[in-house]
């Protein structure tokens, strides 16, 4: 095996891994704060991709502007989800799971009827390739990687250094103590749902030029997101970054060397990690 091949595989796994991390950080944030499994995260990702497609290709807006508008749109969807669905079932884990599963069915089928079954593609504004250590990487993927890193760092910084971010973290640690300090948990639930869906929308917009669009693109991502947050520990954003990178590496290298069988490797990794460390790599024992 040559260095060129190794470097190509590694760069590819880094790109997909970081976008996985972006997607899963929303999932893990929502789980940490509201302790519900956001089962419609994959559908939100799919809607994000289609929104980006229409903004960027049909309306021909600027690339970055399209991404930001997509994020705003999916964020509003997150607010609607929180206000009209999860709040109604009082954030109980199983009912919210089923509400979200039902919504996923509705959204995916409506997307199939509305957007059609044919897969679509968007052209990236970035063209050309660069050679890194002999391996070939497209500029497009490097740009996606940079944007994904930017969003993750922005999320972490805002959770650590803004007042709202600290309040969200307080609610995720202990709702009752946080509300005794004058934090309204309802606003923080809405906020975390907003941020979670923004992250899914960003991942969808970033991945649209690379993987293309189809109405059923969300489901595998949802499953991968579950695996990532379990590896990293539920509720931990650094954990989801690590989990995303692990998944990216396992996927690229496994698919290259073992083919279809490799899609079970991530599950085996999850089982091993959970048996050794039941709370995930970065999870807290509670």
């Amino acid at each position, binding site marked *: 095996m040559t260095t060129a091949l190794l470097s190509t595989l590694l760069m590819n796994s880094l790109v997909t891994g970081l976008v996985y991390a972006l997607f899963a950080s929303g999932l893990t944030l929502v789980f940490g704060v509201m302790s519900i499994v956001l089962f419609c995260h994959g559908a939100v990702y799919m809607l994000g991709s289609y929104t980006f497609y229409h903004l960027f290709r049909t309306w021909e807006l600027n690339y970055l502007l399209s991404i930001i508008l997509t994020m705003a749109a999916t964020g509003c969807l997150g607010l609607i989800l929180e206000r009209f669905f999860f709040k109604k079932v009082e954030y109980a884990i199983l009912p919210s799971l089923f509400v979200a599963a039902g919504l996923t069915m*509705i959204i995916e089928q409506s997307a199939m009827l509305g957007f059609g079954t044919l897969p679509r593609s968007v052209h990236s504004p970035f063209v050309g390739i660069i050679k890194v250590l002999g391996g070939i990487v497209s500029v497009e993927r490097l740009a996606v990687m940079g944007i994904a890193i930017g969003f993750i760092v922005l999320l972490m910084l805002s959770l650590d250094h803004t007042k709202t971010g600290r309040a969200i973290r307080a609610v995720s640690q202990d709702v009752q103590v946080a509300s005794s300090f004058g934090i309204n948990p309802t606003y923080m639930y809405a906020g975390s749902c907003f941020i979670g869906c923004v992250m899914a929308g960003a991942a969808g917009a970033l991945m649209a030029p690379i993987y293309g669009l189809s109405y059923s693109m969300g489901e595998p991502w949802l499953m991968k997101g579950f695996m990532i947050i379990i590896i990293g520990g539920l509720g931990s954003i650094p954990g989801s970054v690590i989990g995303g990178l692990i998944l990216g590496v396992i996927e690229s290298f496994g698919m290259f060397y073992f083919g279809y069988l490799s899609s*079970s490797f991530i599950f085996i990794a999850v089982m091993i990690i959970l048996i050794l460390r039941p709370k995930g790599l970065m999870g807290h024992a509670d």
Partner: protein
Amino acid sequence: MQIKVFKVIALLCCLVFVFLIPLFVTQLYWLHTFTMFAIHAMLALGLWLIVITGQVSFGQAAYMGIGGYASALFCKELGLGLFTTILAGGVVAGLLGLSFGYLTLRVRGAYFFVLSFAFAEIVKVLMRSIRKDILGGPNGILDIPHPTITIGALNLSFVSETGPNTSLYYWLAMACLVITILLVWFITRSRFGRELRGIAQSDDLAESLGINVFRHLLVTFAIGCFIAGVAGAIQSYNFTMVTSDWMEVGHSIDQLSWVIVGGMGSIGGPIIGAFILTIIGELLRAVGAYEPIFSGATLVMIMLFLPGGLISLRVPKFSTLLGIFKRLSRAISFTSGGSSGNRKQSS
């Protein structure tokens, strides 16, 4: 005492009625749908047994598929009889559940939920990619022969000249469903079942009372997987095939939704949920591509407006109905009188 006797007689009448259905339902389509309901109800009951301990399994479809694969292999490769293979399918699924549970039942809540899902995916991928000569790869095992059973002098064949004998499959599935209901009912009524409910409320409390929580969870999980395996084995005979598509996530969601929509409060919940959703699913075939939208909306509506499931709907007593009717009629006469008076004044 009298009420008890009455209840038992009513239940027996229901049972006789259920078993007589093939004599007057002549449409094979609906008979097949009822067979599917029996299989679905068994799956829902097995899952319900696991869920009442507080562990939500998201991978029951895998155990069902394994039961189907095992019985198909025993039937085709070893040539064993119907009941042996069904039991063997259940046992294989139960053993798989036992080994998975032994590794993972110490974690609870969302972790177990996701782990059970991960395991189901591993099983699915393995079934698709290993030993393609026996397991058939993505196609699965096809052409499982229709069985023939001998009870005393009676020789029953599950296939006739015109096609598979749907009534016999219906009776087989219903008989297994009745046995499953009795099994689950005895488990929940026993001391063991009461201890399970205690575990669901608090692990630590149950442990302090001398209950071996892990062992209880393990036994329950294995029984639930056994039931799923038996259901899968029956379905594999009924469809004369078994594929790894049975282990898709959608089927695990279906099984959970039968339990949730029916309600977890009592044993009737999963059965009612399986019945209603199976029938609705068949009726919704008329709307074609809109079917997932309707079933998704059903799920959302029931979760939002009927959180206890369908079982929490109580049939009101006759006296309350009478009272409501009286009040309603009074209100109607009052409003109609009032409005007619208003109309006169305004004109």
